[in-house]
């Protein structure tokens, strides 16, 4: 077979699978599995990213594999959209695999070899999701992805909470999968062809198309963690080993975004304008929900998980915006919004993976996930601290890093939303912009809390003194991802150019060609809004260096070390620092309505006064527990049918018989 990007991608995915299987050869040997196989997997990832980066500008190409259902062999197809996400997958996976090579230890739970198998099958199945071109192949890859990730989550399966998390995750994933399946069932539109081509060709009545769209939103939203289907996310991410959390949060959630884009813009063809309001509304809600909950978390991985929910919300907001514009026939703005979405997906893959890996390193060095027992690590583990700082600043949407770019693009798109024909909508959209901005600002708050409590200040536990930087491979992984954040931040124009080919190929539209040089990002030349992070950075660095030099020259550089100023309170110690709960307190006050709070406050007369606060998700009680209760009641009700009396059973069949006879007579 000839080597095209598509076949290359398939080969690389197959290679991943092979590496995974190879892990079973010597399942317990850490040197073989971790130090050899994972780096190989990482190289695969780099290769995949390279191939995808090239093929993003190529014309789509197809291939039919000799497996699958008899009338429905697996079709695969690589186009700009899938290439973009394949790049994301490869690039992020490379960093994570490097890290994982040093991270995984043998011990409790799954053996390294089996873990390696699950890990690489997870990667391969994600890749296949992106390449699949028929409903069946897609579903197979999709569910394999869910399954492998479930096994990865439950690595430490002896801990009940982790089992519960895994169960919740797989349950919601499965429900989502069924919804997606039904949506495919609608889209194939009577032609019993389940290939995506047939779906592109099928002409659906608008009502059915809407049904398909909503089903898809539900299904993919369940995987992405849209409110109210987000509950699995903050459970599963902390449960999983850090590289796995990084993969799930950084890459797997994006496959859901990919699915929505594929269905909406490719398979359904012409989405109606009002559809966009659904993901828009849910997205905004999700964004707020996620970030507000992130602000009050005390477990660093839960915090990051909630921040992922927030970013997913922003992504879906962008998708909604793109659909609205597309439906209204505003090609350029639709393209802009879509590019913002793709860009943000890419960014989030890098920064969130980076942060999760950072927490992983901290977790290994200290064995602590609770923010209340960390602190001051920037002195013990400078590498991790400074690299994580990059991620934290990036995800707070601060220039000149990458998080800011996608935010900027999205806001640019929002700014012209008022040109949408429907007055109602164009009244609504600015409020959307306001919420997005608010969420972004809160994200900064969250990240300051996260970084400050974990890495700055004084260590809250004596044990932290023994913490130290991880090994070379881990560092390599972190550096790779941090580099990604920086580059994506500094070179927005070329990236936007590449992503433009995606929107063009999807028929959404494309951005007009500006005359601006490569280092200036100018999406809409007609309104001279420009952003040139390189200049920006150069200027800041220049000023900083200049100031430093001048101050040094004109005056002096003398420094004395002394005890911190204790404001006259004697014996200031680490436990007097602000805690995670304390840092979250303003948010708790302001957004009280979101939370279900149980707090225990000491009275002045307590012998051993203790203060505890538990913040839980209202939705959990408002939605899920009642649902379970409902099913329970129904089950109890039907159980009455089966009382063990044979007479009753005979009566059933008698009644059935008579009824049916009466029916046919």
């Amino acid at each position, binding site marked *: 077979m000839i080597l095209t990007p598509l076949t290359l991608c398939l080969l690389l995915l197959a290679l991943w699978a092979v590496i995974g299987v190879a892990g079973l050869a010597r399942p317990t040997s850490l040197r073989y599995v971790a130090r050899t196989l994972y780096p190989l997997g990482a190289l695969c990832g780099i290769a995949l990213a390279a191939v995808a980066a090239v093929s993003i500008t190529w014309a789509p190409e197809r291939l039919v594999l000799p497996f699958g259902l008899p009338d429905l062999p697996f079709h695969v197809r690589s186009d700009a959209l899938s290439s973009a996400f394949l790049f994301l997958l490869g690039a992020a996976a490379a960093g994570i695999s490097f890290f994982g090579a040093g991270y995984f230890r043998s011990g409790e739970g799954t053996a390294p070899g089996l873990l390696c198998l699950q890990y690489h099958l997870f990667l391969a199945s994600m890749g296949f999701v992106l390449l699949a071109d028929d409903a069946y192949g897609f579903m197979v890859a999709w569910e394999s992805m869910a399954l492998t990730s479930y096994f990865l989550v439950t690595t430490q399966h002896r801990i009940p909470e982790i089992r519960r998390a895994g169960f919740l995750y797989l349950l919601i994933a499965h429900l989502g999968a069924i919804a997606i399946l039904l949506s495919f069932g609608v889209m194939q539109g009577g032609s019993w062809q389940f290939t995506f081509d047939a779906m592109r060709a099928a002409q659906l009545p608008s009502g059915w198309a809407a049904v398909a769209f909503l089903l898809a939103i539900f299904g993919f939203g369940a995987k992405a963690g849209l409110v109210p289907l987000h509950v699995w996310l903050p459970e599963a991410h902390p449960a999983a080993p850090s590289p796995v959390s990084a993969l799930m949060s950084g890459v797997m959630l994006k496959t859901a975004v990919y699915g929505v884009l594929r269905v909406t813009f490719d398979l359904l063809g012409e989405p109606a304008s009002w559809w966009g309001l659904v993901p828009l509304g849910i997205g905004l809600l999700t964004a707020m929900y996620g970030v507000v909950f992130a602000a009050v978390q005390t477990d660093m991985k839960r915090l990051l998980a909630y921040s992922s929910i927030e970013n997913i919300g922003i992504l879906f907001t962008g998708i909604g915006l793109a659909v609205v514009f597309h439906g209204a026939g505003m090609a350029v703005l639709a393209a802009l919004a879509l590019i913002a979405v793709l860009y943000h997906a890419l960014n989030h893959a890098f920064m969130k993976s980076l942060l999760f890996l950072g927490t992983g390193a901290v977790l290994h060095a200290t064995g602590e996930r609770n923010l209340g027992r960390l602190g001051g690590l920037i002195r013990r583990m400078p590498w991790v601290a400074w690299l994580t700082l990059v991620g934290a600043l990036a995800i707070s949407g601060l220039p000149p890093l990458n998080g800011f770019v996608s935010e900027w693009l999205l806001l640019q798109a929002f700014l012209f939303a008022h040109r949408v024909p429907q007055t109602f909508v164009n009244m609504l959209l600015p409020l959307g912009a306001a919420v997005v901005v608010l969420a972004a600002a809160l994200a900064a708050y969250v990240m300051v809390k996260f970084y400050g409590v974990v890495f700055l200040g004084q260590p809250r536990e004596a044990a932290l003194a023994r913490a130290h930087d991880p090994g070379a491979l881990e560092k390599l992984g972190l550096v790779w991802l941090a580099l990604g954040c920086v580059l994506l931040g500094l070179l927005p124009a070329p990236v936007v150019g590449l992503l433009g080919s995606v929107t063009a190929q999807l028929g959404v539209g494309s951005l007009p060609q500006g005359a601006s040089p490569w280092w200036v990002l100018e999406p809409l030349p007609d309104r001279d809004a420009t952003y040139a992070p390189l200049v920006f950075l150069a200027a800041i660095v220049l000023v900083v260096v200049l100031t430093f030099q001048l101050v040094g020259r004109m005056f002096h550089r003398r420094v004395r070390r002394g005890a911190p100023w204790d404001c006259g309170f004697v014996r200031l110690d680490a436990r007097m620092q602000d805690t995670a709960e304390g840092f979250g307190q303003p948010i708790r006050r302001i957004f009280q309505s979101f939370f279900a709070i149980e707090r225990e406050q000491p009275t002045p007369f307590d012998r051993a006064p203790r203060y505890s606060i538990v913040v839980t998700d209202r939705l959990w009680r408002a939605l899920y527990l009642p649902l379970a209760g409902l099913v329970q009641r129904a089950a109890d009700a*039907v159980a009455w049918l*089966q*009382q*063990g009396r*044979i*007479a009753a059973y005979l*009566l059933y069949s008698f009644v059935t018989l008579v009824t049916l006879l009466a029916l046919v*007579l």
Partner: protein
Amino acid sequence: MNPMPFDVQLLNALSALLLLLAFAMLSQRRIVTLVSLLAVQGVLLLAATLLLAWRTGETHLYFSAALTLALKVLFLPWVLYRLIRRLDVYWDSEPLINISGTMLIGLLIVVFSFGLAQPISELASTATRSAIGIAVAVILLSFLMMITRRKAMSQVVGFLSMENGLFFGAMSATYGMPMIVELGVALDVLVAMLVLGVFFFQIREQFDSLDLHHLESLKEKR
């Protein structure tokens, strides 16, 4: 209208008797009597079969008559009597629905089954077409009996009388089934009887009674 030939009248009389028997069983509490009633049912079937055989001159009806004699008149009652003696279960306890209520329901069932059989009898070419309704009635009545009884033994009697009803139905609708099927059915009934015999002793040695309320432990409601 010409009067029916005598043998047809006889057949109808027999079928009427069968129906009566079914009601008798429904109302009967003594198990021994139940078994005797079953035997009588067998005899009636035998008579009907022979009559039909003589009338239509179909040889395979003679075979089935022989089968009936061997199985339903002689063997089954014999086995049942022995079981009763061995396990000394002579009485069934009060049925779940009291007798009069059962009777009423039985009447409704008869009406229903006649209505059910109406279209079939219209199509039938046999001399005994009008008996089909009765066959259905017997089947459903035995069903009812199985529902209402509390002792395993009487349930089995109900089961067997249902078998008889089926046999009668087959005969009155189509002068019986093909030979091979007849044989197969007979074999099954035979085996079923043996299995039941084993069963009774197993149940007996477990619960030292054949009361069905011992057999109500496996259930969902708890």
